[in-house]
Structure formats: structure tokens, C-alpha cells
């Protein structure tokens, strides 16, 4: 890598994953700190994250990152000790630090210098540090049991959980001594993970590992640096401990000594030591009590076997699976579904031919069982691909805060339902659209504080992001209590932009007018703000949501607020579809777009301005003959039947009736791509294989209707000029 870190690409990936998590934690923490500045837990959380990041970046060798986190640590330390007040300036500075840290993280990821200077931010931190009270570290005067027990750990040792501390404190009761050891793995070791594992085994042989850094799980995953620390308890003497540790090849003892937590805090200056420094036994040991080693017949703990190093890890019963493996599994199950359908067809033949003989009965029940099994498989695999949306949602609070500041709005951002799970590829794709919608709410939805006060609202607007599960799909709602969308303004704007003629605009229902905001090139912002006024946002949002087989609905009330409801299917590859026939080809229409199906006498089809429509329950529904939509021809001897089948679908709040030759049925359909050779065809989203082995075309209703609609609108607009 460009920085010449002495680490493998794997180690860097591990660092980046951890750094990402730490930065997220810090960001979340600082946001909370803004609201609850005197909550010690929040401060502690930020401190811990900064501390961990400091350690890893130092180990990695990114000096500037270690330096910055170190300075943050100092400030945070003062805060948590009550010596520094959290002001707006402090929060802003911390946020600025985060941004620099993110840039540094990018540097590590790409290997390129970011050119970001931490100079000014370091100065700011130093200035804040100085304003904190200058009381000396209270080491000597602290009571024997300091409230933050962690501060009594030897410097250079990461934190123990309360459970671990219990184990350490209770060791003497069990006749054991607690030790901590700092080991160094030979840089030239071919397989450091093996050596680390041997260390854990060796210690497990003579005692019980309380905690290790890296953990056993990390060692098993080969995430090992050249540094290892352990806290363990044993009945053996220091000699035995030393000999045991010395006996591990390619591993050197940097420090090992008994450990007791009932000691006063060490000199806080030691806290400044960077973790990667080889620990000096003298600096590290603040011992007051050396627990005597009982000379009585030591009972050896049961020999540790490969999988059972005691206490070293929280038992983790997960495995990592490549997403591709899950995709392949999903495809295979899809194939199974198809084959089962074929067998079902054979069964139907058997049943009619042989009238319930035993063979067909056996086949019938076996197929029913297979159906249940494939259903289970699908469900399980799908579950394996699910992640809580929290992964995505946690990025938003910061962004909303920044956008709000820039736009001069006061926003209360509420997030709900973050534990709701979504397919991971959907999560990847839905992030950008949601961000756009949130920006939209902040920028256009919520009014400036003064305007809000004038109409009797609170100066602070509320933007809510909520995820909930509704039967077979997920609904993500982005709502604000702002000014709402005014259909009149939209109509006027559309006419002004030449998207519609005045006539056409007038004829739109309010719902249809509101849905015009999805049209390309549409935006009611008078000036282009750099946040979201460019008019390129919402149509892309709509397209991206549709690509995920999702849909978005707008609910709004002028003066009260707006809600965007994004509906997403739980699974991408399989949809429920209505099968129809046109000119001997079977087409599939996603059931969620279908409002209803009907059989209409041809005589009821009216023509309005050269367009065919029907009237249903007082509403005029334009018709689109699929034959025409695809530019296909009827054979010369075609006779118009007396009745036609119409499938009424809803597209962007508008209803359209699709005229087809026949309705075939409905069922689950596995989506297959048409392939690169055929490419993208407007109106078609893919293909599927039906039970009889034939290929059916899956329609992309909205793009189909759009292409036809846009063309018609333009024609009309052109005509009326």
C-alpha cells in the first residue's frame, strides 16, 4: 500500500472495519452528547471508541491518526472527569475531528494522501484542553475502589468487562492468581496466528484465560498483529507461568506479572502511552497487593483442547458467508421451484389419465412436501441475507444535522424501527434514495423557523425516518411536519416547464399532480441550492426504487406535512405476478402494481382525444393496448373480440388499463435477466421460465407506461402551443 504499512491487505481490511465501527460509535456518541452533555455514559462511549482507534492506528503506523485521537482522548478525559464543560464549540470541534479522521481512514483505504491537515483542529483541541481546569490527576487521593474500575488497569492494557473484572477479583477466593502478560509475536513468524493460538492453548493448560487481545475468535480468523496481551488466572506460580510462556516458539515475553484490581489508579500520565509501545513492566505495574501463590497441591485445570480455551472468548456461533454463495443458493432454489411446477403439471395429467391411482397419490403428497421444503429453503436463505436497517440508518443523523445547519432550519430527527431487517442488497441500494428524500424534507419540506412560528408551529420541525414490516414487505417512511406539497403549485410549475399543457394540467387529479414531482427535470426550487434544488434528484430516486421492485407513495397535506412511503419487497428475485397473454406470448405483471382485472365489452370503450378510455365507477381510466405499446402487429385476419380483458394497474398514483388477449393466472415467478446481448428494453424488466418450460416476459409497468405517456404528453403540449 502507498503508505508502506508493514501489514497485509487483510490486516488493513480488519483495521478499516474496526475503524468504521469506531467512527460510527463516535459520531453517534457526539450527536447524543449534543443533547445530553452531562451523561457520563455517552462520554465514556466516545472516549472508548477514540481510545480503541488510537491503539489500532498506532499499531498500524498511521501517526497522524494516532496523534489526533490521542488529543481527542485528552479532551474527552477531561470531560468525563468533570473538568471540562461540553459547549457547542466543543461539539463542533469534535465533529471536525471526526471528519479529519474519516479522511485519514480514506487514506488508508486508498493508499493516497488526502492532503487534509489536522493542524487547525489540533490547535482547537489544545485550546479547549487548556480551558479545562488544571487540577492535577487525582491518582493519590482516589479511594481504593475507583468508580471507573477500568482506570486502575495497568497502562497499555485495554479495558476489561465487568464480568472479566469479577473473575480477576475473585481469583484469590478460588485459590488462583490473576496475571497479565504482554507478548510479542516474532515478525518473521510464518504463521503468527498459529503462535497466538499456541499461546492461548499454553495458558489454557495451566489456567484460565479471562480475556485476550486478540480474542480467540480473532486468532482463529487469522486477525493477529505482532502484539498479544492476556489476562488470565492460574493456580501455578510465577515461575511456571514464565516457563510456560517462554516455551512458546517465536513468541517473546515483553512483560508478565500478577494482576490485582484492588489497587488505586496508576499515574494518569501513563494513559498517554500509545498502546503499541512495548510495555515496560515497571511502568505497567501499580501493584499494591501481590496475591500469594498458594503452595498447596495445585489442581491442574482440565487440559485445554483446541476448541475449549476457557473464557477467552464470548462464544460466537456465527459464520461469515460470501454474499455470492447466498445468491447461488437462492438461484438453485429458484430452479427447484420451477422443476416442482413442471412435476405438478405432469401430476395433473396423471390424475386425469389414471384417476387417483396410488402412484399419483404418492406423487401428489411428495410434491406437496417438496413445496413446503422449497418454501422453507427460500425463507431461510432469505433470512440469511437480511440485515437490520440500522446499518444504514445510523449514517443519517449526522447528514440531517449538517443539511439542516446549512439550510438554516431547526430539525428534530427521529429514527424508528432501525432493528427492522432488509435484504442486504436492498439496503445497499436504498441508501441513496432515502438520503435524497431526507434532504428533500429538510430542504423543501420543513419551513424556516420564522415561517413556522408565524403559522403557529414550533420553530423546530420534526423529520421522522421509520422502517416497519407490513406482511410481505417493508415500508420505510420519511415524513416531516412541514409545509406539505401543494398540487396547484405543482400544476403551475409543470405547465411553466412545458411538461404539460394547461389543459392537461387542469385535468389532473390532485393525487396525479402531486406525483408529478417524480417527473424528470422537475423541481419547484426557484434557485439552485447545492443541497437538492437541481431537479435531478427525485426522478432518479423513483427509478432506483422501482429497480428494486419497490414503489413509493406520497401522502401530504398543505400546511401540515408530507410523508413518502417507500414500499420494498422482502426478496428481490421472486415476485408474485399476474400472467397475461398477448399475441401468443405470456407476459407477467407484478401483482403489487395490479389494482384489479376486468372483462369489458368492446362497446364500452370510449375515445377521448384519440385515446381509448373506459369509465369505471365514475373515473376515467386511459387504456393502453399492450399490442400497440410494443409496436406489434395483429395478423391480417384478426377479428376484434366482443370483450377484452383489462388489467388495471396503478403507476405513480395514476391508473391505467392494460388491454390483453387473455388472463392466464397468478403465481410466484423467478426473475431472470434477459442478458447483455438483448440489453435493456423499456417496458421489460426481465424474463421467467414458466411451469411448462416456456419463457415469459416480465413487464416493467411504470417504464412501459412512462415511455408511452411522455410521448403523448409531448405531443399534446406541442399541439396546444
Amino acid at each position, binding site marked *: 500500500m502507498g503508505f508502506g504499512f508493514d501489514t497485509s491487505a487483510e490486516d488493513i481490511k480488519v483495521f478499516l472495519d474496526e475503524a468504521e465501527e469506531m467512527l460510527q460509535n463516535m459520531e453517534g456518541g457526539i450527536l447524543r452528547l449534543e443533547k445530553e452533555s452531562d451523561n457520563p455514559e455517552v462520554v465514556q462511549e466516545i472516549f472508548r471508541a477514540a481510545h480503541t482507534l488510537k491503539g489500532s492506528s498506532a499499531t498500524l503506523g498511521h501517526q497522524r491518526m494516532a496523534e489526533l485521537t490521542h488529543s481527542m482522548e485528552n479532551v474527552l478525559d477531561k470531560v468525563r472527569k468533570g473538568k471540562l464543560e461540553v459547549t457547542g464549540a466543543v461539539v463542533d470541534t469534535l465533529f471536525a475531528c471526526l471528519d479529519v479522521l474519516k479522511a485519514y481512514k480514506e487514506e488508508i483505504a486508498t493508499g493516497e494522501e488526502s492532503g487534509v491537515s489536522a493542524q487547525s483542529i489540533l490547535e482547537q483541541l489544545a485550546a479547549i484542553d487548556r480551558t479545562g481546569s488544571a487540577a492535577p490527576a487525582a491518582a493519590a487521593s482516589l479511594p481504593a475502589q475507583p468508580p471507573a474500575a477500568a482506570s486502575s488497569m495497568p497502562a497499555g492494557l485495554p479495558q476489561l468487562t465487568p464480568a472479566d473484572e469479577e473473575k480477576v477479583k475473585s481469583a484469590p477466593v478460588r485459590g488462583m492468581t490473576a496475571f497479565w502478560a504482554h507478548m510479542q509475536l516474532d515478525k518473521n513468524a510464518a504463521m503468527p496466528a498459529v503462535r497466538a493460538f499456541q499461546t492461548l492453548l499454553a495458558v489454557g493448560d495451566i489456567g484460565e484465560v479471562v480475556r485476550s487481545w486478540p480474542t480467540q475468535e480473532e486468532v482463529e480468523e487469522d486477525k493477529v498483529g505482532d502484539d498479544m496481551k492476556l489476562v488470565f488466572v492460574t493456580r501455578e506460580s510465577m515461575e511456571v507461568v514464565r516457563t510456560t510462556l517462554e516455551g512458546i516458539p517465536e513468541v517473546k515475553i515483553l512483560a508478565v506479572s500478577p494482576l490485582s484490581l484492588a489497587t488505586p489508579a496508576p499515574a494518569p500520565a501513563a494513559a498517554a502511552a500509545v498502546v503499541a509501545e512495548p510495555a515496560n513492566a515497571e511502568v505497567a505495574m501499580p501493584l499494591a497487593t501481590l496475591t500469594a501463590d498458594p503452595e498447596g497441591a495445585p489442581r491442574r485445570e482440565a487440559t485445554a483442547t483446541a476448541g475449549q480455551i476457557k473464557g477467552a472468548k464470548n462464544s460466537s456461533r456465527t459464520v461469515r458467508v460470501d454474499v455470492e454463495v447466498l445468491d447461488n443458493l437462492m438461484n438453485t432454489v429458484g430452479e427447484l421451484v420451477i422443476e416442482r411446477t413442471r412435476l405438478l403439471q405432469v401430476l395433473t395429467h396423471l390424475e386425469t389419465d389414471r384417476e387417483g391411482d396410488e402412484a399419483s397419490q404418492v406423487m401428489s403428497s411428495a410434491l406437496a412436501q417438496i413445496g413446503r421444503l422449497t418454501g422453507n429453503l427460500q425463507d431461510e436463505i432469505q433470512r440469511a441475507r437480511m440485515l437490520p436497517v440500522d446499518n444504514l440508518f445510523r449514517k443519517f443523523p449526522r447528514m440531517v444535522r449538517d443539511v439542516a445547519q446549512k439550510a438554516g432550519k431547526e430539525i428534530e430527527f427521529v429514527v424508528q424501527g432501525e432493528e427492522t431487517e432488509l435484504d442486504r442488497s436492498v439496503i445497499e441500494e436504498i441508501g441513496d434514495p432515502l438520503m435524497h428524500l431526507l434532504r428533500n424534507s429538510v430542504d423543501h419540506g420543513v419551513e424556516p423557523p420564522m415561517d413556522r412560528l408565524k403559522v403557529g408551529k414550533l420553530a423546530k420541525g420534526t423529520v421522522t425516518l421509520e422502517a416497519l414490516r407490513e406482511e410481505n414487505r417493508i415500508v420505510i417512511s420519511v415524513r416531516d411536519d412541514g409545509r406539505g406539497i401543494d398540487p396547484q403549485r405543482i400544476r403551475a410549475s409543470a405547465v411553466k416547464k412545458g411538461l404539460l399543457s394547461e389543459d392537461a394540467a387542469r385535468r389532473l387529479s390532485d393525487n396525479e399532480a402531486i406525483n408529478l414531482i417524480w417527473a424528470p427535470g422537475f423541481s419547484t426550487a426557484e434557485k439552485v441550492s447545492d443541497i437538492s434544488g437541481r431537479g435531478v434528484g427525485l426522478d432518479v430516486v423513483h427509478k432506483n426504487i422501482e429497480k428494486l421492485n419497490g414503489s413509493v407513495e406520497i401522502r401530504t397535506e398543505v400546511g401540515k406535512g408530507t410523508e413518502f412511503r417507500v414500499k420494498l419487497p422482502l426478496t428481490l428475485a421472486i415476485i408474485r405476478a399476474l400472467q397475461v397473454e398477448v399475441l401468443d406470448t405470456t407476459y407477467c405483471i407484478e401483482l403489487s402494481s395490479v389494482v384489479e382485472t376486468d372483462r369489458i365489452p368492446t362497446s364500452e370503450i370510449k375515445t377521448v382525444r384519440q385515446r381509448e378510455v373506459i369509465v369505471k365507477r365514475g373515473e376515467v381510466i386511459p387504456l393502453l393496448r399492450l399490442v400497440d405499446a*410494443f*409496436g406489434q402487429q395483429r395478423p391480417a385476419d384478426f377479428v376484434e373480440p366482443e370483450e377484452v380483458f383489462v388489467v388495471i394497474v396503478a403507476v405513480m398514483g395514476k391508473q391505467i388499463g392494460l388491454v390483453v388477449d387473455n388472463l392466464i393466472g397468478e403465481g410466484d415467478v423467478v426473475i431472470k435477466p434477459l442478458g447483455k446481448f438483448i440489453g435493456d428494453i423499456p417496458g421489460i424488466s426481465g424474463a421467467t421460465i414458466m411451469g411448462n*418450460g416456456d419463457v415469459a416476459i416480465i413487464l416493467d409497468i411504470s417504464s412501459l407506461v412512462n415511455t408511452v405517456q411522455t410521448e403523448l404528453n409531448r405531443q399534446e403540449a406541442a399541439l396546444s402551443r
Partner: protein
Amino acid sequence: MEQQVELRDAVTQVVVFQLGKELYGADISAVLEVSPLLRVTKVPRTPTYIDGVTNLRGRVIPVVDLRKRLGLPVTPATKATRIAVAEIDGGMVGMIVDAVVEVLRVPASAVEPPSAMFSKVDTEHVQGVAKVDDRLIILLDLARILMREDRKVV
């Protein structure tokens, strides 16, 4: 002198198929498999020579009518009609042929460069003409034939 002859006689294996009354060939490495012609589903808004898509063991693959593509007369399908599946650009494409005859070993010495006299097919789609046992086999450049010119980026 002898060495030259040896080099020139590198042998390629060619899948020989029939389009109309003539014999055509494609390098065996380009043809993944030969399948009976199952039902083809028309796909709207595609060039005429793309007949549609078909089901190849659970995969949806496009089907090209080679006769239309090469500007040859199209005859109705018979029991001998087959789909020769080629791999293009990471995806599979099926080509309709009137019959698949055999796999032939063609020595390089038997191949002559394309000339307008021998075939009705555009020379840019033809790699050469092979003469084996009194038969003329027009060797096709599948990669070029199956390239979508209507989508070529200038």
C-alpha cells in the same frame, strides 16, 4: 521447406452446419453445445434477426436466427433444426441452424481467404472458405456476427 508445410498444416476442429443448401462452419471452441430447438418467446423491440429467448436448462438465453442475420432465405423449422449455443461477451447466445452436420478437422492448408464469389454472405462475417473432400465450408466469424452493430459506440 518441409518445416513450412508442417506449420501451415495446423488443424482446427470445426462444427459444420447447414443454412439453406450451403455448409457453414464455426471453430469448435466457439460453440458450447448444440440443442434441439424448443419454443422461442418473442421479445418486442429487438432487431429482426433476434427471434427471441428460449429456455436452456433453466437459463434464459437469446436466440438469433443466423439465416436472417446473414441475409439468407429462411425456411421453416424441421426436425433437423438445431440451436448452436455460443458464448459471447460472458453470456450465451443460441443460433438457429437448419441442421448440424458434423465436426470436421480442417487443416489450415485447406482454408482460403473469403472471396465474394463463393458465398452470399458479407465478407466481414466470414473468416475463410475451407475445401474438404469436394465440399465447400464457409467459415464464420461468430464474434463479429453476434456483435450488436446497432449498439456500437462510435
